């Protein structure tokens, strides 16, 4: 553990929506450079957990701290959380379809976000080459001048992952990256995520066990808003409680 200090710590978090307890005393930690899969049946609280970390939802109780020294994420808004280095990919691909792949990536590139700096921003060669390098990583090198709305579903997913990487986050939250992808596209997505996790923390929310198995990483199983089991994929798939609530169905 000392080689991989804790980056994100969620402790004792609960949130209730209209009497429904979506997250129930949830606690877990993510290390600085690790790939983690979060699985669980529908309604287990996976997306709500991401909403809490990224500032979209405020929990009723509990603490969420990030980095070292620990910053209290519950006191920050979405854009401030993004600026300290937490990137989020949504379930449906959300890229800016009326703009080119290049413009999407330039917008995401880690630079000052203040309106004044952005007004006077003019891209230089180093930014262009960064974008080109990223585009090559996500397999969109020859699509840079296309409108991103014209891309295929899989390419949009990669573009969004590319935009996340351009932000250079320390923690990447990825919601169902493989949904709607062909087997080849899934394989490539796995490669991109594993490579990203070499230098940063990547949390992947997924329902698809096959995809999780291919990621080959530590797995956290959520059920009714709390951690049910945690460990390697083989460990959790043999856990009787997990089999009962999730795999047994």
């Amino acid at each position: 553990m000392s080689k991989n200090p804790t980056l994100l710590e969620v402790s004792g978090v609960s949130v209730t929506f209209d009497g429904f307890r979506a997250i129930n005393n949830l606690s877990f930690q993510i290390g600085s450079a690790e790939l983690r899969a979060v699985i669980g049946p529908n309604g287990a609280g996976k997306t709500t957990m991401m909403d809490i970390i990224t500032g979209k939802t405020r929990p009723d109780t509990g603490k969420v701290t990030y980095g070292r020294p620990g910053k209290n994420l519950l006191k920050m808004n979405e854009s401030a959380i993004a600026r300290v280095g937490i990137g989020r990919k949504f379930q449906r691909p959300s890229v800016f379809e009326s703009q080119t792949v290049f413009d999407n990536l330039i917008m995401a590139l880690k630079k000052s976000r203040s309106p004044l700096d952005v007004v006077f921003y003019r891209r230089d060669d180093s930014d262009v080459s960064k974008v080109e390098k990223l585009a090559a990583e996500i397999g969109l090198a020859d699509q840079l001048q296309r409108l991103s709305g014209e891309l295929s579903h899989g390419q949009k997913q990669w573009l969004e992952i590319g935009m996340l990487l351009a932000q250079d986050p320390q923690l990447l939250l990825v919601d169902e990256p493989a949904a709607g992808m062909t087997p080849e596209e899934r394989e490539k997505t796995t490669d991109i995520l594993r490579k990203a996790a070499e230098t940063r923390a990547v949390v992947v929310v997924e329902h698809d066990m096959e995809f999780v198995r291919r990621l080959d990483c530590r797995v956290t199983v959520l059920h009714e808003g709390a951690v049910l089991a945690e460990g390697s994929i083989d460990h959790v798939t043999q856990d009787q409680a997990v089999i009962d609530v999730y795999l047994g169905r």
Partner: protein
Amino acid sequence: MERSFLIRQPSVLIFIGLLALFTIGATILSEGFGLGLISTSFIKTLGKTLCLCLIALAMDLVWGYCGILSLGHFAFFGLGGYMIGMWLMYARTEQIVINSLANAPLPPTSGEIRDAIGSQIFGVVGGSEIPTIWTFAHSFPIQLTLVVLVPGLLALVFGWLAFRSRVTGVYLSILTQAMTLALALYLFQNDSGLRGNNGLSGLQNIPGASNVSQDTISIWFLWASALALGLGYLFAAWLVSGKFGSVIRAIRDDETRVRYLGYSVEAYKLVVFVITAVIAAIAGALYYPQAGIINPAEIAPIASIYLAVWVAIGGRGRLYGAIIGAAFVSLISSWFTSGQVPDVPLGFYTVKWVDWWLVLLGFGFVLVTLYAPKGLGGLFDRLVRRQDA
């Protein structure tokens, strides 16, 4: 290195060229400087139209690019007009008062001059005191600063409150309507200090230029309006050409996603709202000296709705679309409402265009929305593309 935005957007240079040709052409044909083929009142109409194009440009920035459907930008336009109108009216009245008191047996004191100005301007609302908000009305540079400052501050405070609470979509539109309505109702009051429903008048007379004819003054304002529109267009094109343009269009399309990229959406909206309010105010400050009169009815909620209709008809999200829409609709509108269009007698009923013009405009708006959702500017795009292919 990035190429200049002028090279990437050739339409900007085309627009500036056309604007220059138009202005020079109108001057050559005018009564003031040339052949006398265009009447002075029509020169004023053209100059006013250029100002309306400028506020349409602002509307396109805030709505077409940033997705904020503000239905209150005429409040800023009107405030700009009021700020310059205060100086125009005060300084001219001061001249008149000084001239009329010049023959008095004793030279008038400055207090007497002030009282006389007060009763001249405010007699109509039953007062003679000069209200506090007129403190700087004697000074052209200060009132000129206020043209920018007052609407800018109003936009800053209103925008900060609205965007901070994440009011969006139709709720924001309603809030902006409420803002302009509240301002209009306030100004309608006689004790608002701005002459209630009488508004400010005689604004076509420029202090210090009493022996210059209106023929000449109309040309001055035509050129000033054209210059403001040209500069405004260049500024807007520059603003939307780079990353700032990318970010505000992204906010229009999916503001939540922009937030997760680390951009403070509220700050960007506020910047765009304030900038466009200031552009609208400058347009208003040039418009009302040509109109000659401003009263609170000018900033009634309907005016801002018309503005949105112009931009929708012209095509939002493209700067020339806003210009086409504002010029086309406002010129046709002044033609139809001028009484020059022959009425259509149907025997049992006579179609009077002064009344029926609004029906026609509404019908046109529906047609554009249904058959050319990108507006007239969008049709223009299609023609250009067909030539390319």
